[in-house]
């Protein structure tokens, strides 16, 4: 671990001033500290957010919920209002990591967790995300867990988290405080980015910006599912995950909000697939059409080719279940 300065800001504004080049906010530390030990992250200043007033889960004026950035994953998943009205979110959180980690992990930190690409984690290997310009170790190397959608020649990493996949299906919004004290809101679906030729940027946060909350729209109702496929029953990142919020309108699909984890550098959301499903009677033929559309541009890297059929099959399982069909 590189020596660093530890700082505890008095308030949000102060945090914004302290954050800047070479500084990193720290919340639960479950991701950042691991990366610092490996010197994948080498901040010279750590700005501890934990004493800032960023906790609490509160209703919003329009009937939604506002989840403070410091709310832990455990607290969020256990909140009765979240469990009742946003079950896909509670399920996605509980599908991630372990009790111990979720007790520490925060809403803001979880959104910003970094990829689990093996080469990103190993400072003796090339990685454009860690060290732009050094190349990508995963291309031509081991890429079983890598992206099949939206990858680029410089990076094929995935965003590994679960919570954000549910937030994407729910069309939640990220509330961000700028260093100048003003705040802005970014839809979760636009918060993470594709790698392009700047894979070092995971998301749209600018230097000095702090996530203050995640805002959920009013409850969507419908059937909410989070399906995570993984190598072991717990404590493993997704190979593929699907978050679904499906409302039936009699015998037809009223609306289907779908987001996919572990397929791309961001939780994958494809409005075309949702449009295709809306207003249609559920059928396997329709579900396969949806999968065709979703995976139209999917491209395997060799080891991860299996994710393409796996995504199709998982989507099929989720849609059958969500539309009431037997498995």
């Amino acid at each position, binding site marked *: 671990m590189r020596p660093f300065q530890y700082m505890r800001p008095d308030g949000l504004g102060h945090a914004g001033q302290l954050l800047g080049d070479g500084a990193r906010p720290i919340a639960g530390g479950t991701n950042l500290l691991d990366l610092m030990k490996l010197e994948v992250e080498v901040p010279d200043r750590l700005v501890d957010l934990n004493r800032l007033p960023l906790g609490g889960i509160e209703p919003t004026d329009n009937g939604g919920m506002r989840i403070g950035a410091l709310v832990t994953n455990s607290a969020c998943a256990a909140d009765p209002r979240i469990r009742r009205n946003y079950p896909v979110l509670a399920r996605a959180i509980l599908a991630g990591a372990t009790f111990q980690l979720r007790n520490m992990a925060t809403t803001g930190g979880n959104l910003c967790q970094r990829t689990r690409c093996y080469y990103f984690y190993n400072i*003796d290997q090339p990685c454009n995300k860690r060290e732009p310009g050094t190349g990508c170790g995963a291309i031509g190397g081991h890429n079983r867990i890598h992206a099949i959608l939206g990858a680029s020649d410089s990076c094929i990493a995935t965003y590994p988290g679960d919570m954000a996949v549910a937030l994407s299906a729910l069309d939640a919004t990220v509330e961000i405080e700028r260093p100048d004290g003003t705040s802005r809101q970014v839809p979760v679906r636009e918060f993470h980015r594709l790698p392009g030729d700047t894979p070092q940027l995971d998301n749209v946060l600018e230097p000095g910006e702090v996530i203050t909350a995640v805002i959920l729209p009013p409850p969507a109702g419908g059937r909410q599912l989070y399906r995570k496929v993984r*190598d072991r029953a717990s404590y493993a990142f997704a190979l593929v995950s699907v978050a679904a919020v499906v409302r039936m309108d009699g015998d037809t699909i009223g609306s289907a909000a779908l987001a996919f984890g572990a397929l791309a550098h961001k939780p994958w959301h494809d409005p075309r697939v949702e449009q295709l499903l809306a207003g249609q009677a559920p059928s396997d033929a329709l579900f396969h059409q949806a999968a065709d559309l979703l995976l139209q541009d999917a491209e395997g890297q060799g080891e991860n080719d299996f994710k393409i059929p796996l995504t199709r099959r998982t989507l099929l399982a989720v849609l059958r279940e969500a539309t009431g069909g037997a*498995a």
Partner: protein
Amino acid sequence: MTRSLTMDRPDDRNRLDAMAQGVIGQPLDRPDGPAKVTGTAPYAAEYPVDGMAEGVLVTATISKGEVTAIDEQSVLSMPGVLAVISDQRMTARAAQGGAGEAPVQQVRQVQYYGQPIAVVLAETFEQARDAAKHLKVTYREDDDAVTDPHDPAAPTETYDEPIDQGNLAQAMAQAAYAVDVTYTTEGHNSAPMEPHASIAEWDGQTLTLHSSLQMLAYNQKELADSLDLAPEQVRLISPYVGGGFGSKLGISPEGVAASVAAMQLNRPVRVVMLRQQVFQCVMRRSETTQRLRLAADANGRLTGFGHEARVSNLPEEEFAEPVTQASEFLYPGEHRRLAIELARVNLMTAGSVRAPGEAVGMQVLESAMDELANAIGMDPVELRLRNIPDQHPSEGIPYSSRKLVECLKAGAERFGWDGSDRTPGQRREGEWWIGTGMANACRVHNINEAQARVTLSPDGTAIVASDMTDIGTGTYAILGQIAGEMLGLDPADVLVQLGDTTLPPGSGSGGSWGAASTGSAVFEACEAIREHLAEQLGTTEEELTLKDGFAIAGNRRVALPDLLAGAEVERTGHFKPGEITEAFAAAMYGAFFAEVAVNAYTGETRVRRFAGAFSMGRVLNEKTATSQCMGGMVWGIGSALTEELTFDARDGHLVNPDLAEYHIPVNLDVPHLDVVLVDERDPAGSPLQAKGVGELGICGAAGAINNAIYHACGVRVRSFPMTPDKLLAELPDP
């Protein structure tokens, strides 16, 4: 006084059953348990030593070549950094189990990616780790490294003498039923919870090393040889070991590095391996490619048996994963071929990982046996029952006690096995295909030389002392129970002292031999004490009863303190394996029964029920024996479904060197494990009638899971671990 026994023939006296205390075999708690769960049992890195410097190993980032320069100046000015050492005494690899001499020492000659090449010393661990990452190293790289373990072009040699009997090809051609299949398994890591760690102190004469090791008497020689010291100048202390599973059989690089540094800096030095280093520079289980040829007659009786394997290791290493070890004697078949090819690769040392040989050999053999049972259309239990040879199929020697039939029956009954219809894909629950499978368990019985000292104090309590280790297995408990039984004491009145080379050299923990070997040394010492007490009481050892602290003979009953009259009695038992090891095929047996669910959509497999019946000679402690079996079965689940060392073939680096990406089973992967211990006494196993139990629970376990997967969904996966992607490729559309 030392009493020696060289075991040349079975010990039919069965003395333990003649004792009166009634503690042997009891499911007693481990005496070391409370200290461990309350965090007061010190592990190697936890000893408070004043003025300690901290060391972190620097490892190679090429797979073959030479370190041409180490730029010490690149780190010496960093805060707290004391020194960079890359000394010819340091070791590039861990010693193989039982080596008793230094492992390869040329740290500047790089043979694998991740090889230790230097150690950086600093005032704090964080400073040392940071400096280790900054150290500038220049290499000359060779271009002939073999970094893909499966590379067919790797230089290969035949290991040991293959067994060739009769004409297997002909037997295959003429068989009523034949199976010729090739399976692969990937490399495994022991992944002990406690990383390899050492604290070295040097006083100019003696080197004291607190370390996490399995075989101290051997490790003492390995360390002394590495440092050019006499073994007497080295003291090892290892009373608690947080898991070893083979990876701590030999002295490992951090211990030697800490010692060299302590001698050079003249202050105590601690070196703890980073988790990534535990994965990259100690020991791996070799990946294997195994071809099984099974020829059976119309009754399902094996006429031909072939098991050929390809494994790998670094140049100069003698160890080759003994994949065919149990295949030599488990099944009949007069036409036989058993052979191991050893490929030379530039990947971390391959060595003993829990149940070397049978762990992966049995899982493949038992999968192939299932394929044979299916080809015949026979209940796989019945196929096993029909294939129990009368004598060792190659050597003609008899078996020692073998309760395989009893295990098959007890396990089948406990599980509720129904082998009448083995057609796959018959049972579906929601999204899940359900199936069952079974496998034999088999592991050779090993014994090793061991000494232990037993002291009966004037107050009638006893002390057992040996440099034997307890690597989490229950050694403290069982040695106390053996002495308690023999001397008529409550085990609470027996203090067991282990893990210190100033004590008599025990067998060490490895190869499942610890209990039978060091236990027999304790037994010998106790017999000698009993003889002394009998003499004091004016009777013979056979006539003497010791119970609850009293010596009883005829109508005389004397409390031990009265009989001892202020004098202590101290005897050392010395147990040596003799001709017995050649006279019998001695092994532990068992049977596994598994029920799995395979997700029809995703190919995910979950083990729903898992039962095993095992025989291991006398059970010394029902609780610790059961725990060992359960632990083995958990390893079987990992081997079946998740565990795999993944190397990057471009440079030979391990891409998953941590517990997040190397998937050992977690709680949710492990169902209730049902363990049945089958009662047995094996006079050829040891004077205790006991054999070994630490490894048996793995040996075949993953085969039962493979067979259950096939039964569930009709997909035969011939490549372990059976991850969802491999199943997906062959599952029918959901």
